[in-house]
């Protein structure tokens, strides 16, 4: 199975990818968050600079990058979340 997801970038990850958001048409699902990160790295190799610092937010829920498996549906939002600095 694959899903068409909307990937959102924030903060430093916007500068590294040059985009704020993009549609990715055929993301395999279910997929581990680590494999999803590898998939984004293939598209935007400079994201490697954020390796070990980012987490995802999948449908507004934080997901650490690792073994955790996520199931994606068409239209789902996946955000790349660099270290937070609100307040």
């Amino acid at each position, binding site marked *: 199975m694959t899903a068409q997801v909307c990937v959102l970038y924030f903060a*430093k990850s916007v500068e590294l990818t040059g985009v704020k958001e993009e549609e990715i048409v055929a993301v395999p699902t279910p997929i581990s968050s680590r494999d999803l990160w590898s998939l984004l790295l293939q598209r935007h190799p400079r994201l490697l600079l954020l390796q070990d610092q980012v987490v995802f*937010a999948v449908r*507004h829920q934080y997901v650490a990058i690792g073994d955790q498996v996520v199931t994606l549906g068409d239209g789902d939002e996946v*955000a790349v979340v660099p*270290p*937070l*600095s*609100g*307040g």
Partner: protein
Amino acid sequence: MTESEERRDVFKLSRDWLSVQEVVDTVSGSSCGAISMFIGTTREDELGGRKVIGLDYEAYELMAQSEFSKLCDDIRERWPTVTHVCVHHRLGWVKVGEASVAMAISSPHRHDGQQAIRHCIERLKASLPIWKKEVYDTQEESWKENAE
């Protein structure tokens, strides 16, 4: 209306100057004897000869709202007497000296509110998807990172 139906959790992301009075008014009510507040402002800071002139904020807005709701649930679970919670946070350009966040919590008595406001700012920094970069007088910029 029962007491619990009247409770307000108000979150606002704003590109304008924050009104402390508006935040206070939002949590005011005749059952609240105490309002605890915290306001975070940008300090004038120098880092290696560069001077901070301001901050540039961005947020994942819809998710920030839902994380704020979780934060309020957590506060009310720990301090059930908390009446109203209000947080206003800036987006975009914030000059040195201006408030970037203003929050207030009301409660019948002061101790709960005082503890809850400390928890509120800690949790906000740890969990709300908001980012800032410092902008220097050299036109350099640097994304910040909250301490754990």
